[in-house]
């Protein structure tokens, strides 16, 4: 399991290695057909900053070879914000006094209908907080069952589950799982996640192995930029993780995310580091050059001009017109967001924008009939 592997990798030594990379190391990496982790460290290091334009060129080249001129579109739907965890940075933190929602089946179905009216979404991402007493795997399974007539590709972003539960959900049509590790720094992980199941680092980091073993078709990973000052080290750990998973669960597709925290407007959690736009671009290009096949996803956390320009250079998946509160499309359009949406454009605007950039939004990339044999119903 990956927890055993990550024990062998020193956070501090990795940080040192990254900062000791030189222009020569960067040039070597950029000249290679197939980069290794050492090359990734070079490309993500400060030494690579002057090479941003060349990295953009390579990133665009590899993205076009694998993905063509397309961007995959998805929409997130929060179905609960009831959570027993205490993530210090999250709007759904257990101690936040706010209205908690667990949508009923009828409400969930209304959300699906409302989403279909926005744009021809086929890829949906169901998001929940962690409250298994009130919204457990069976609740999630029902949400998937109800989604089937509306969407051809179902993904979930929920608490890490057991292998058996992931497998059970695949029988209800679940195609993919997204789970951000948040940070790979085991020592500091508990500072940000002090209580609840989420405080267990090894349970979370091994969740990806459990997904692979359960035969989940698609696995999404992410590091929350703002937790650890050394975001380069954190993202390098994710690169290690990605390569490990690709080797062991070779029939699975992967995606990565770099959610960036913004300075808090109130007394909320202040990020320990702010990643600049150039740094985000560098990290994205580095990831694309390192892995020609991984899906790179930018959510509506990112502003419009960043998403549009990066869609031509390496980003392959985007959400549109997202609501990050439960029932945000129909039932409770005014409720508290989990995070601030910075790209507030309507889906139709985003579509026009992508087309004017020479990109085709792709809505459907799977069919439920491929999993026909697996299905419970």
């Amino acid at each position, binding site marked *: 399991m990956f927890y055993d592997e990550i024990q062998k990798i020193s956070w501090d030594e990795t940080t040192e290695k990254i900062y000791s990379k030189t222009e020569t190391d960067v040039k070597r990496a*950029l000249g290679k057909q197939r980069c290794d982790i050492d090359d990734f460290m070079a490309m993500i290091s400060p030494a690579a900053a002057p090479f941003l334009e060349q990295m*953009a*060129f390579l990133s665009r080249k590899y993205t076009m070879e694998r993905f063509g001129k397309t961007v995959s579109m998805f929409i997130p739907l929060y179905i609960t914000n009831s959570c027993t965890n205490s993530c210090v940075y999250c709007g759904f933190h257990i101690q936040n006094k706010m209205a908690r929602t667990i949508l009923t089946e009828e409400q969930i179905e209304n959300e699906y209908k409302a989403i279909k009216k926005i744009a021809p979404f086929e890829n949906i991402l169901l998001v929940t907080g962690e409250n298994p007493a009130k919204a457990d795997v069976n609740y999630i399974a029902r949400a998937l069952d109800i989604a089937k007539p509306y969407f051809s590709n179902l993904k979930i972003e929920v608490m890490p589950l057991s292998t058996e539960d992931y497998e059970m959900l695949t029988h209800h049509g679940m195609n993919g799982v997204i789970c951000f590790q948040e940070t790979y720094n085991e020592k500091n992980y508990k500072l940000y996640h002090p209580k609840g199941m989420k405080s267990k680092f090894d349970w979370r980091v091994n969740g990806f192995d459990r997904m692979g073993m359960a035969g989940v078709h698609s696995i999404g990973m992410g590091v929350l930029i703002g937790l650890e000052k050394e975001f380069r080290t954190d993202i390098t750990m994710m690169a290690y993780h990605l390569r490990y998973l690709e080797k062991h669960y070779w029939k699975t597709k992967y995606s990565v995310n770099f959610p960036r925290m913004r300075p808090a407007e109130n007394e909320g959690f202040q990020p320990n580091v702010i990643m600049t736009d*150039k740094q985000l671009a560098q990290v994205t290009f580095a990831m694309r050059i390192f892995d020609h096949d991984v899906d790179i996803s930018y959510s509506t956390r990112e502003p419009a001009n960043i998403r549009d*320009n990066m869609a031509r250079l390496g980003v392959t998946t985007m959400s549109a017109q997202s609501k990050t509160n439960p029932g945000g499309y129909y039932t409770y359009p005014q409720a508290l967001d989990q995070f601030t949406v910075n790209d507030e454009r309507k889906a139709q605007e985003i579509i026009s924008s992508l087309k004017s950039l020479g990109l085709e939004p792709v809505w459907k990339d799977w069919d439920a009939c491929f999993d026909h044999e697996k299905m419970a119903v």
Partner: protein
Amino acid sequence: MDNLIIGGKEFSSRLFLGTGKFSDNRLMAEAIKASESQMVTVAMKRVELHDESDDLLNNIVKDKTIQLLPNTSGVRNAEEAIFAAQMSREAFGTNFLKLEIHPDPRYLLPDTVETLKATEELVKQGFVVLPYCQADPVLCKQLSEAGAAAVMPLGAPIGTNRGLRTVDFLKIIIEEATVPVVVDAGIGAPSHAAWAMELGASACLVNTAIAVANDPVKMAIAFKKAVQAGREAFLAGLGEVSFDSKASASSPLTSFLN
């Protein structure tokens, strides 16, 4: 130490040898010795299984540094291969087996379906299976999942000496491998073997190129050096290849970030 481990055994030489096509067995034995190879494959079909004084075998079995790797060349399907393997284990006293199923007698290309089937069964029966196979990355993942101790994708058809015609696929196989990758078949010159090792292959298996050389013993030594050189180059990390971006300064892709 950069030893190769297959089936629980350690090999300091990454050059494996085949024994067919030599003009005589004495010369073959000299070539094996000169190559310092520690894994030598012998076609069961060529050996008198019940004759302890068999010439072909004696030259190899006597040398305790060499792991005998019987192969099933000649069989046409999984059933025949499994039976042959069982006979081999009894006759030679080793679990090591090169699985070679080529129903086509012209190109001797491996039958993918039968090879996978036979691997699955032979692993269950406790064999250390080294399957000779097509350079198909998906097949190699399936063979390793089935428990093969290594995978042996071909560089080119057996005996053609054409080198790494399948190089694009060998690269993918090596990249994705969780078991040793031994490039087997088609290696025609020491430079081919060096290239395979530079790419990251775990070992090379060479037969025709040595057996039909004008001087097989000298050629065996050349291959030994080539495999060592290629491996050392791989470990040293090949240098920078100049990068030509063709990026245009006048309309930069990243101007939106300024």
